[in-house]
């Protein structure tokens, strides 16, 4: 009996060790350990043994059985691992083949500049205001200290619908409307399309975009204006940007200034964009003219304010290196996709 068991052990272990596939291994499992397996049959045949032999043989069989089971389980793991490696090997791909990406569109460069500016001023507590493009002359001119005989009202510069209705030549009428409707503190920026009677060429367009800002409150000073614009210039054009105020004249501000920024292309050394000057004329600004405050129902004895405004296209062109303004309105998809 003992010999028989030993033989089964020897054979089965050999077979298990030599086994190369999971299927064969399962067959071996059945062959030796199954209900009709060789080892099971041995147990069943124990009845023929003497009572003395029974525990000895029984324990031997169990010992062999444990050994086989552990042997099979070990083999199983080995084969599974092998199979997986095989599978992974067959699933190799060429990672340099083209991707299946979802095609993205793009925001127009004008929007991108406007968004950038909006974000900076939203962060400083400004609201975004908007108003009509086909606007009353009274908001576009009169309330902004530009009386009827003023040169800025010339038909050569402004598009007229009627004597009283114009295409706004600036976004400032939005400021006048907000000042009329809202009590200080007022902190707004107004981005939008404006219209001027300029023929289309590389640097001019009858439609372009402006962003204006307005602050009205108690104790607003010109140094606050400078600080605000300096902060804006640094955030929008780079932390090393410097700002320079030059006296200028606008009907709706007094004192007025033009603000130059150190060229954000060359850093002020002089290049094509800044015409070798190191400075780029960025915007017009100033303290809101007392007449404008009065016209809009705000007492200039109590409140003061500042305003500034600039053209979006010029900044977009300088920032993105676009040399011809017409490209912005031609909308060739090969142009648009670059942004």
């Amino acid at each position: 009996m003992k010999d028989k068991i030993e033989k089964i052990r020897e054979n089965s272990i050999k077979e298990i060790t030599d086994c190369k596939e999971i299927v064969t291994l399962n067959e071996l499992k059945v062959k030796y350990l199954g209900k009709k397996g060789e080892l099971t049959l041995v147990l069943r045949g124990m009845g023929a043994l003497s009572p003395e032999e029974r525990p000895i043989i029984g324990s031997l069989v169990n010992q062999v059985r444990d050994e086989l089971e552990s042997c099979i389980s070990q083999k199983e793991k080995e084969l599974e691992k092998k199979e997986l490696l095989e599978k992974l090997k067959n699933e190799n791909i060429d990672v340099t083949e083209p991707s299946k990406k979802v095609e993205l569109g793009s925001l127009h460069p004008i929007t991108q500049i406007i968004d950038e500016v909006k974000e900076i001023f939203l962060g400083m507590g400004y609201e975004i205001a908007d108003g009509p493009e086909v606007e009353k002359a009274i908001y576009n001119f009169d309330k902004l200290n530009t009386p009827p005989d003023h040169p800025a009202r010339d038909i050569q510069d402004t598009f007229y619908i009627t004597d009283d209705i114009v295409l706004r030549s600036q976004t400032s009428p939005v400021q006048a409307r907000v000042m009329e409707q809202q009590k200080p503190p007022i902190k707004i920026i107004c981005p939008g399309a404006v219209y001027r009677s300029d023929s289309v060429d590389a640097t001019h367009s009858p439609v372009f975009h402006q962003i204006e800002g307005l602050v009205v409150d108690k104790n607003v000073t010109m140094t606050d204006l400078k600080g605000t614009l300096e902060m804006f210039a640094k955030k929008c054009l780079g932390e090393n940007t410097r700002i320079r105020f030059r006296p200028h004249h606008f009907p709706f501000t007094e004192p007025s200034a033009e603000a130059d920024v150190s060229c954000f292309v060359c850093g002020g050394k002089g290049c094509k964009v800044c015409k070798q000057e190191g400075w780029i004329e960025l915007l017009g600004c100033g303290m809101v003219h007392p007449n404008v405050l009065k016209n809009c129902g705000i007492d200039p004895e109590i409140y003061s304010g500042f305003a500034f405004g600039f053209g979006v296209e010029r900044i977009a062109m300088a920032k993105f290196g676009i040399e011809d303004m017409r490209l912005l309105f031609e909308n060739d998809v090969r142009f648009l996709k670059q942004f």
Partner: protein
Amino acid sequence: MKASIEWLKEYSDIDVTPEELGEILTMSGSKVEEIEQKGNDIKNVVVGKILEIEEHPDSDHLIITKVDVGTEKLQIVTGASNVNVGDIIPIAKDGSELPGGVKIKKGKLRGVDSCGMMCSIGELGLELTDYPGQIENGIMILDKSLENKIGENIVDVLNLREDVIEFEITPNRPDCLSIEGLGRETAVSLGKKFKNPRKNIEQKIEDKKEIEGLKVDIEAPDLCYRYIARVVKNVKIGASPEWMVKRLKACGMRSINNIVDITNYVMLEMGQPMHAFDIESIAGKHITVRCAKKGEKIITLDEVERELNENNLVIADDKKAVAIAGVMGGLNSEIEKDTKTVVFESAVFYGGSVRKTAKQVGLRTESSSRFEKGLSPENALRAVNRAVELVELLGAGQKVEGKIDVYPTKQKINKIPFKPEKINALLGTKLTKEEMVKILEELEIKIENNLAIIPYFRMDLESIADLAEEIARFYGYDKLEATLMKAETTIGLRNKEQKIIDRIKETLVNCGLSEIYTYGFVSIEDLKKSNISEELIKTAIMIQNPLSDDYKLMRPTTVPSMMQILANNVNKKNQEVKLFDISRNYKNIDNQVEKGEVPLQEEILTIGMYGKEIDFYVLKGMLENVLETIGVNRYDIVKEKENESYHPGRCANLKVGIDIIATMGEIHPEVLLHYGIGRRAYLAEVNVTKLVKYAKQNKKYTEVPKFPAVERDIAIVVPEEVEVGEIEKIIIKKGKKLLEKVQLFDIYRDSKIGENKKSVAYSLSFRDKSRTLKDEEIDATMHTIVAELEKTLGAEMRK
């Protein structure tokens, strides 16, 4: 305004370079446009004398010369034919430079050494008109008297050196359209004393009613604030002295004769335009300042006949207009060679009127561009007295004592309350009162009893804000600190519409669309090309003064703008084009514009696309994405057959509530043809202004279901004209609350099904969130759904 530094030095010491001066004046408000340094571009050109001339052995048009240039004798070969032995000429020596960056080096001409070049007028950058007797195509022959200057620099000999700065003067500062005004700015900017060389002019002149028989009347005192006439007699018309010609030229004016030059010189010097008449040409010796008669004609000094109307102010004698006031004189009263008695006019007209007249007759002159900004009547007297002084200085005539001075509206002297604390508050500075007073006094603004007394030449200063600007300018804009406001906290937030527009843009970019920007202008033709309805065209707003016929109207719809951009892309051979734009339409409804009201302007999202993968359903899907992203869940898509911009079988309106929010579809083949687009293309217009009302910003969580759904498939055959939307509506209605989802998964057409029929298959999903559904309840529901489909749509179940 151009100013020569030499002239400015009469008003202020200048101890900085022209570049430095330009920088300093720019920073105090007189912005430099250009600095012109004449004479600097001519280097190493000297006076020479021709000693010998011989023929060139190998050329019949070249000659070989020997030229004395002082330090040496040079051999120079030239093709010039106007030179002779003994001529004094300008010689560009080896290594010299001429205007335009031309460099002269020695070389060989047909084998003969040439050590320089003789120069013509043009090569020296000079003008023929300034050097009478010289020729254009030949060497400049200098005066024999310059023989003692041989070897000297031509720039010094001909006095060519001149530094001129051109300033951009803002419209509020007509006083700076003069050397005097710029001289004052220069002195204060440099911290020098303003020399005021014209101080002695302000003398009292006796007023007369009549001088040499001349009388003056102003008929339009609202347009003419002052008219002064002074007379000079025994006039000798001739050339002006060189210093005057040179100054005029530096400022961009040509010399004409001594009397006309004096008027121009005074205008440049003091900013007051002047006019000179020959007294003999004034009929009745009576000057009247009046409005022109309608259709009245005058030939101006430029020999062009101008037609005037009653809005134009003229200077007239008893018979005719002799000048357009403030714009230009008439040919009929011009100073002639034999003029003996001259009337100088120094007047001030209302700027608005001069500007309009100048525009109307198409003549913007040095004179009108000064008047239109509003000039000081007080300065007019100084100017005319200066003109008379110059006549005597030049020996051009003899002054007649007295003046005729009609001065109906005396210039008001502005007095502004001077509040230093208010100025500091506005500027954010901490200047002392004394510092402020010092700046103001340098600008000739006197402080008396806390009032700032404004000098006659600064009519632009009216309020404390103006004083603040003056103080800031000379304190230095660059010295202003950069501070941030200390004020009440404000919250910067985008409003609902702004947020929604941003989300829409984001969604469309994620769908692969690129944003475009278009003009709001269209023409009637553009609208017709896009098959826009007559009714809509009627609401278009007409521009009175359009740039061109293409830009006559403000668009009542964005369709033509998008069509044009699609066409542009087709022309550029772009194959896949997906675009969007959010901008406005402009509609004149109920004659708002005529009533002086702002017309309707709505934000419109326009989508335009063409390409291989694109069809109606791609477009529809994008719009549905947009609606989903802004929380609009309930909407109907309804077929639209009447909109002629679209294919009648492939167009739909999107309705939310009672509003039609959008129209979408394939573009009508006719419209495509009009735009030369040879392929199917798609268009959608979404009224964002209306859509915003329906957008929901707050999203709420609903529990993810715990109990399983029951899935049922259903396939029915319906007539072709039945829209799947109708089927879905019935399923949803009859499926009631338990129906969670209806998904169309197949549409199938086959002859076996029948002519004009289609099979439509849906997957339905039922669920109760609180329990597991039983098959039987769903069977019953399915049964009612099928029964209703059969009844209303004539559907047959497919087994």
